[in-house]
């Protein structure tokens, strides 16, 4: 007996509907660690905004795979990413994960923590405070931006406070710097053994930088001076490609100075926010992914301070 060829499909479709089986496979991050220095592996994110296509995989995550175990720097944007990262690490080494360091509290850097809940997670005290205060709101926002990739993601706070100084791990001398320019609590890590600088989001490369928690452009520029004075031969920015020179640092500083000048001049002219958001973007930044988008955001974050500095007292409170 011949069957109509469409029938089995219709039957399957009906069954899927009845039992609510997933029609699409679960999204997969496909993380591919790449060795960039002795023991040092990079999982490079895309220079995009958060989206339902990329699941928030826009961040650079690094791990040191040593004989003494694995140290992970940042855990990514979601539980699913953290799990994929852990699986990717296991493909590179049999050594167990011993420790996690978080560079700062932004959701794309810390929401993979659940996958590392069995090892100590360390961060600056200020980072832990910011995560406790704002973590769930930021996670909610991530859920809105990237959707299903976030399923089951919860904020896991660090359980260890880092102090600036030297941390020895698996034959590496890691200099920990407590900086503040990007969020008020930013950890930069210089591996003095390999000469690799893990700059976190203090350095962006070929992607417009973000300013939602910066204490101010001056503070950020001061941090970049400090990082520039250190001896390193390879820099891993928080977002964007790694480099063997100080190009990413100079690009970040150049962009910050341009923002500062743009806001200062606009406030002196009496410009309101929308006019500032539409400021011309110099050609050297215009091709950076998300240049206009981040200028709009940074205007929201920072311009009120520049206005405030420009305003006079016209009338005291009565």
């Amino acid at each position, binding site marked *: 007996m011949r069957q109509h060829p469409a029938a089995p499909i219709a039957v399957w479709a009906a069954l899927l509907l009845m039992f609510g089986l997933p029609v699409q496979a679960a999204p997969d991050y496909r993380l591919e660690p790449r060795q960039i220095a002795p023991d040092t592996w990079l999982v490079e994110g895309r220079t995009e905004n958060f989206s339902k296509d990329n699941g928030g995989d826009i961040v650079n995550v690094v791990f040191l795979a040593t004989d003494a175990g694995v140290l992970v720097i940042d855990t990514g944007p979601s539980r699913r990413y953290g799990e994929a990262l852990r699986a990717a690490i296991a493909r590179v080494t049999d050594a167990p994960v011993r420790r996690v360091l978080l560079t700062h509290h932004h959701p794309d850097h810390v929401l993979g923590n659940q996958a590392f809940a069995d090892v100590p997670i360390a961060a600056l005290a200020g980072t832990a405070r910011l995560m406790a205060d704002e973590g769930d709101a930021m996670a909610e926002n991530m859920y809105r931006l990237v959707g299903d990739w976030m399923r089951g993601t919860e904020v896991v706070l660090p359980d260890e406070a880092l102090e600036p100084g030297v941390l020895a791990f698996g034959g590496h001398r890691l200099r920990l710097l407590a900086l503040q320019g990007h969020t008020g609590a930013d950890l930069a890590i210089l591996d003095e053994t390999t000469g690799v600088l893990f700059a976190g989001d203090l350095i962006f490369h070929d992607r417009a930088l973000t300013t939602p928690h910066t204490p101010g452009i001056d503070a950020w520029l001061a941090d970049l001076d400090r990082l520039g004075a250190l001896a390193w031969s390879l820099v891993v920015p928080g977002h964007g490609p790694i480099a063997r020179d100080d190009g990413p640092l100079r690009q970040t500083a150049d962009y910050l100075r341009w923002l500062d000048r743009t806001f200062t001049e606009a406030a002196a002219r009496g410009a309101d926010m929308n006019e500032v958001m539409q400021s011309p973007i110099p050609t050297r930044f215009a091709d950076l992914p998300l240049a206009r988008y981040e200028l709009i955001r940074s205007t929201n974050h920072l311009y009120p301070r520049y206005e405030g500095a420009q305003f006079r007292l016209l009338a005291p*409170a009565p």
Partner: protein
Amino acid sequence: MRVTVCGTNCRAFTKMCRPTDPSLGRATQARASRGWRRFAVLVLAALAGGAVSAGEPDPLGSVMWDYHHERLLEGRPYVFDERVKVMAPPFAEDARQVPIQVDARALDGQIERVLLWADLNPIPRIAVFQPGPEVAPLLAIRIRVEQATPVRAAVLTRDGVWHVGSSRVDAAGGGCTAPSVVRAQPGWEDRLGQVLGGRYPRGEQSRLRVQVSHPMDNGLVGDIPEFYLNQAELRGADGQPLATLELFPAVSENPTLTLQLKTDQPAELWLRDNNGNEFQAAF
């Protein structure tokens, strides 16, 4: 400590904040009378002539357009007119402080008043602006948005037609129901009515900018009743009004306003809140 990211209750928050004006039901009755009104609009626009078309559907396709046309524009003739520029960011980075700028200088000389609103806000109205002949029809202000919404400026010209400009702001939402930032700051009462600002020459003209310390309570947060600046007047040296501004509690806390005076004459801004407090600042 673990915090759940987003349960199903995330959405309940925005739901209660949708426009639930009881008069919404009247929109149904109004629909019956819309037929002849559409016709009248078309006739009027045809009489007015020019490049404008009338009674056209909302270019942003807002479900609230007809409702606001009936209620805020009193069902009178309207055209969507690109000469009314509404500047707003495409998304609200901070839903409590969304900058809006209206520029209707292309219609200067014909303007009766300018009405600003956000279609999907629980308190749609933002401001009513009446610039006199010495004040440019240009206004920048910051507002709260509760969810993604069209933002409108309707300019009523002397011929009785509303010229409508629109912009769309995307938003995660919650700006109207977020706890007050001002009230969380110690000593805010002592600063109530303090005015910061400046005057900035623009050729022959002057930009006037102010930021007024005021919580602009909208009655939607906790048990705090409405407490907001509802009136402002720009006055010349001898006290004569140059422009008037009616404000609604969609306006953000510590309102920031930008106006443009066509001359270099001295000016003062007078403000009053719904509790009768009056404030005054000279430029």
